[in-house]
């Protein structure tokens, strides 16, 4: 327990210390949330932009932390030999993975503690599906962490950095987070719904929009990614 706690504390401290990770996990989501709810340019369809934006930005926050933040940090730890060095200590791989999971969840908690009040301050009328949201966030976290680690475990530090950022931008655009999936061309829309980004934002929109519920398809997609991506990462991960 001591070891897990010490490792988790270091993971959280180092993430919070990196300026670029703060920008990614808090800066960009807050900026997008505030900007697009004040400037009505997005084709959000519904009467109020914030009611669409808030769940989408929560999905973005999960993707930022679990896929990009975790993936980039782990990729660099791998190329700096940190994972190799920790492998020679009694920490052990299960505890290292547990510490990373715990730190991702702690950071997400911090993101929600900022983003949700900001969204309410911007006039968000949230639905009541908080338990379903929690489930979707946990599944989404597992799925995105799997994707991030899949890249981090194979690509060189800088290549991984570029790949994670590139994927982030693509999924931001086609993930239904700021632009509704219904506005995408139908072929692209089907692909987007099969991705963890589309499924998570569908699920959060369903749970947190009044009068809607989570589509079954979103649950299925999330569960599949939450199982397959971490398994693939575990199977292919290179520790040095």
């Amino acid at each position, binding site marked *: 327990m*001591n*070891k897990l*706690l*010490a*490792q988790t504390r*270091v993971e959280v*401290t*180092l993430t919070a*210390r*990196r300026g670029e990770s703060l920008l990614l996990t808090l800066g960009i989501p807050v900026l997008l949330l505030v900007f697009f709810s004040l400037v009505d340019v997005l084709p959000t369809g519904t009467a109020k932009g914030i009611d669409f934006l808030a769940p989408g930005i929560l999905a973005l926050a999960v993707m930022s932390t679990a896929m990009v933040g975790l993936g980039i940090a782990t990729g*660099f*730890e791998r190329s*700096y*030999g*940190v994972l*190799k*060095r920790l*492998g*020679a*200590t*009694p*920490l*052990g791989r299960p505890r290292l993975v547990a510490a990373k999971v715990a730190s991702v969840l702690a950071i997400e908690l911090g993101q929600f503690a900022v983003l949700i009040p900001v969204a309410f301050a911007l006039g968000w009328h949230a639905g009541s599906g908080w338990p379903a949201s929690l489930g979707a966030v946990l599944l989404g976290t597992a799925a995105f962490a799997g994707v991030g680690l899949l890249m981090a475990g194979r690509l060189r530090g800088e290549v991984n950095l570029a790949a994670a950022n590139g994927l982030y931008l693509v999924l931001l655009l086609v993930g239904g987070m700021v632009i509704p999936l219904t506005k995408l061309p139908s072929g692209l829309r089907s692909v987007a719904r099969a991705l963890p980004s589309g499924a998570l934002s569908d699920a959060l929109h369903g749970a947190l929009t009044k009068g809607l519920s989570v589509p079954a398809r979103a649950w299925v997609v999330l569960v599949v990614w939450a199982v397959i991506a971490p398994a693939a990462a575990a199977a292919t991960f290179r520790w*040095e």
Partner: protein
Amino acid sequence: MPAVEVEQLVVRYGDVVAVDELSLTARAGEVTTILGPNGAGKTSTIETLEGYRRPTQGSVRVLGLDPIADHHALTARMGVMLQRGGIYPGIRVGEAARLFCALYDHRRAADELLELVGLSDKSGRTWKQLSGGEQQRLSLALALAGCPDVAFLDEPTAGLDVSGRQVVRRVVRALADEGTAVVLTTHELDEAERLSDRVLIVDHGRLVAEGTTAELMAKGAGHEIRFGAPAGIDITTLGARLGGAVVEASAGEYVAAVAATPENVAALTAWLAENQLPLADLRAGRQRLEDVFLRLTTEGTESSLPTSRRRR
């Protein structure tokens, strides 16, 4: 029982043989140094002991454990210093020490660890703000966090300045005195000579000599006198005077094949004085480890000539 026992270890990467039937032992309370030129297989050997690599052939035991099968049990009793890196670039010195100490049940205090390597006043610096030498010292300190029974240090003095080297020597000696089996690698002869109780000289993945530094240096000692003088002196006359052959090994570097007795040294210097020749350098009796090393490894010879690879 030796702390480390390696028998007929072979490590192969594809077609490249990094370690070739190497056997070695290291005992508790001793500093055992694996000395060899770059590419001799030192890191491959030590990483096999640490459990990072699977032996292609042969057997490896560390504290009686298999480094891979019993890895977790071994980690609690093993200290490791990698050749480079291994630490979060953004972590502060104090945080790194506290983290590593927390990972061991039987552990040193973080403050003591930093004190030991002279980094107490750098506790608030991050790893990337440290100089190369300070990074090496922190990396060494972290290897000691768990009061290890066996410590593997890969090139602990590489890139260190004089004071850094002294810190490493002192820490390594203290560690061995506590009863830890210290195994380190180096390609620097001086360091091997100063740090080690026992030295294993490896080349091309094979063990070419082993023993205490005294034993290695005594090998073949006393049978020649080496000296420096102007090039082209009359070696025939000098040889007749000394009663043994004198050869000019390279321009201005001579080897006289006579016992390194005070009489012979006196005869040599007297002859030089008579002929008004300056004496640039004189070495008689004990050799330095460097001489042994150069004789046994390919370094300093034309490795393109296979026949001259191992001069004996």
